């Protein structure tokens, strides 16, 4: 294990280098003086918690964001990037985490966007566009994606492949990949890694981020660890446990609070043979006091399952029972009002959960206005009382309950959402990737809150994109693949590796 060695070679400057990067969004500091350097001919992994600043760094290197302070160099030359085009001119191309494909254009149009083959008069040659795209995909060994299909009509994993492919065909000298594998299966990851090795062999520089340790270990030459918006160090070969300690500032075993064993098995939520858009033959039982994890690759039916259980998506077949009673869910309203009360805390609290410009108070009582109104008029006193109590119980830090929810920190926003459902007296909580983009201290707080909630007799169905989190925090974990439950893991067989292994295994029939 060697310590950081920026430009240690001395002869050649690093292919890409960043010094003292600072970037803030609103009041939140995403990067606080981060340094980074990667050399030509190496595969360099960036690791860190969600919100550690990896994505922001990649966006700055790719020219998509401009830093508040600090500088970026390509091949030793300092460059101020005003847009992706300038990065492209320096041979730096990025595969962004949030896909940047245009949904209502074809795969071919996306693949060659702004680099389309031109006909005699300078206009795009549509037939050649399609042919060129086909040939480019073929060259990369991609044969199952139809270049004439609309991006909207292909699967998420296929979109991720197209996103990668369209950058790779630009022959980048520096390839920046932000979580390129989040929805890829085993074979697809192997394909990508073959590509990356090929680039390395040709002396290119590849920088990538990933949450899966075994992937990082298998391909990265060097690893730079990020924490709280700055680099902690660059390493060549490091053990996972050590890396996690560096990433989180805590030891792995103290990050997660101990999970109390499950007492009596009282079923609270049961699904039998549930099928619908994106899911099929899903069945499970969630017990009182249990945290049941749901894991797997992105785009394999988790979102659909959670929405179906919450009534926000129609079930085509199967039954959902809460507290032994069969439910007929025509909308979230029915789920919220069902006997035990089902609640969904969605992944993207900003677009699906909170009303950012509205007051914390309004957000807290949104689901219970019926109960605190008389003749349709909201009873202000009762509302004030209830929101004050819940804010105290959850230790929501806000200047005032009339403060807009958008002004709160990520963790406190999450608490407001949980508070909404506690006020609604929901006993079955569906938590969907609630720790994403939340700092480590808040994460810890959320974990403890979850344990308190189940301890009080509630039950939690918990989807997370972080397998480590699932392995430590759940009594059992269901792994979904292609909309079905591919494996159900319980202790002692439960581990992050087992979850990932079950998730990426290819289906038996293609």
């Amino acid at each position, binding site marked *: 294990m060697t310590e950081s060695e920026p430009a240690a070679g001395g002869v050649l400057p690093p292919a890409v280098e960043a010094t003292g990067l600072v970037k803030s969004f609103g009041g939140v500091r995403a990067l606080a003086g981060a340094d980074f350097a990667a050399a030509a001919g190496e595969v360099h992994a960036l690791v860190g918690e969600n919100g550690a600043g990896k994505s922001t760094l990649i966006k700055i290197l790719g020219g998509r964001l401009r830093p508040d302070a600090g500088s970026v160099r390509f091949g030793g030359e300092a460059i101020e990037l005003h847009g992706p085009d300038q990065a492209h001119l320096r041979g730096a191309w990025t595969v962004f985490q949030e896909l940047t494909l245009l949904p209502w254009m074809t795969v071919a149009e996306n693949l060659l966007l702004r680099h389309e083959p031109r006909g005699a008069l300078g206009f795009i040659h549509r037939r050649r566009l399609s042919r060129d795209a086909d040939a480019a995909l073929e060259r990369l060994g991609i044969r199952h994606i139809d270049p004439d299909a609309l991006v909207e009509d292909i699967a998420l994993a296929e979109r991720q492949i197209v996103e990668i492919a369209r950058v790779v065909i630009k022959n980048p000298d520096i390839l920046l990949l932000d979580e390129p594998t989040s929805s890829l299966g085993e074979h697809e990851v192997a394909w990508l890694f073959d590509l990356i090795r090929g680039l390395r062999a040709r002396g290119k520089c590849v920088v990538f981020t990933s949450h899966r340790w075994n992937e990082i270990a298998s391909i990265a030459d060097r690893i730079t660890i990020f924490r709280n918006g700055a680099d902690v160090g660059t390493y060549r070969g490091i053990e996972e446990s050590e890396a996690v300690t560096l990433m989180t500032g805590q030891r792995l075993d103290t990050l997660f609070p101990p999970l109390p064993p499950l007492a009596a098995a009282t079923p609270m939520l049961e699904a039998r043979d549930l099928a619908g858009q994106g899911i099929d033959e899903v069945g499970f039982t969630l017990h009182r006091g249990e945290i049941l994890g749901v894991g797997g690759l992105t785009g394999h039916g988790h979102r659909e399952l959670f929405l179906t259980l*919450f009534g*926000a998506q129609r079930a085509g077949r199967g039954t959902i029972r809460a507290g032994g009673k069969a439910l007929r869910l025509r*909308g*979230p*309203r029915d*789920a*919220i*009002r069902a006997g035990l009360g089902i609640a*969904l805390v*969605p992944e993207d609290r900003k*677009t*699906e*959960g*909170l*009303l*950012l*410009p*509205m007051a914390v108070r*309004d957000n807290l009582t*949104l*689901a219970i*206005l*019926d109960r605190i*109104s008389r003749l*349709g*008029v*909201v009873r*202000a006193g009762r509302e004030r009382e209830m929101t004050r109590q819940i*804010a*105290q119980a959850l230790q*929501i*830090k*806000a*200047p*005032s*309950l*009339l*403060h*807009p929810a958008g*002004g709160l920190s990520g963790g406190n926003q999450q608490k407001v959402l949980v508070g*909404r459902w506690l006020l*609604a007296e929901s006993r079955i909580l569906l938590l969907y990737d609630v720790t994403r983009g939340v700092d480590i201290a808040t994460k810890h707080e959320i974990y403890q809150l979850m344990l308190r909630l189940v301890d009080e007799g509630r039950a939690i169905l918990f989807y997370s994109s972080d397998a480590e989190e699932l392995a430590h925090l759940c009594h059992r974990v269901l792994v979904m693949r292609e909309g079905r439950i591919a494996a159900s893991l319980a202790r002692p067989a439960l581990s992050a590796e087992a979850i990932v292994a079950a998730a990426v295994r290819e289906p038996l029939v293609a």
Partner: protein
Amino acid sequence: MARGSSALARLRLGRDRRRTLYALAAAAMLFVLGEIVHPGFASLDSLEAVLTVASFVGLVAAGQTFVVLIGGIDLSVPWILNGAAILLVTSSLGQNERAPYAVALTLAMGAGVGMLNGLGVAFLDVPAVVITLAMNGIMEGLTLGLSGGLTCQACASYAPPIVQQAVHRQILGAPAELYLWLAVIIIVSFVLGRTRFGRHTYAIGNNLRASYLAGISVRFTTVMLYALSGLFSALAGILLVGFGGQASLGMGAPYLFQSIAAVVIGGVYILGGRGSYIGAAAGAASLTALVSVLLAMNMPDYGRSIIYGVVILVLLLLYGREESER
């Protein structure tokens, strides 16, 4: 939790009120300007006259506020209003004893047509622009067709005297119409500010998906809001016949543009979620004051139209700057 509120909270809470103040200040300035170019313009009588004209815009703007708050728009105002005016005179035949029935029928028609708009938006997923545009055509065709192009015998009837009095009668030195408008301002502000329905409206306007996932009946609320918009258009139609005595073709046309302008000037965000009816009412007042001043200056039609547009653009740019300062 700290007591009191931070600067940010104050800024946000203050913004709606500040825009209402802008609009009112603009109206006041316009009266001063009017007094300068045309002495006597700022007299009480003239103020009363301007506010009365503004009240009709203001009533339509109430409906428009409801739908704009959820990011919608109601383009069916002109012919719901016109249809309502004609329906009132033809069903009442100018007789006081038929008036209550005629008013109820007319309001129900407005609410019903608005409800159809809402059903189209909420259940058929037709964009608000399209469905309300189509509905305007439908109402135009029905109004023209059923009244034979306003040639029917009953079409020449006057508004029943009660209805005319409801507009004109002086109470404590002001026309009844202004009290009516004041009542509407109070009721609408109360509904938006203090009731569950109002809270749902703002929630949907801010974030439809999140509101749905919080168990709000988005569809029901949407249908109700469009119904309210239709209702207010019809109410404005009734009062306008009361004001002028008779119905005419095309009397609704100016109210589409003016109601949207009033809402925008009053600081209601066109994509929904923010703004108040007091703002829109102040917008209606300043808009009417502007027109009156321009008239007093003998500004020709075209000049008014141009200045109208420029004023809206200037205010938009002003508000836009405020927006980005946040």
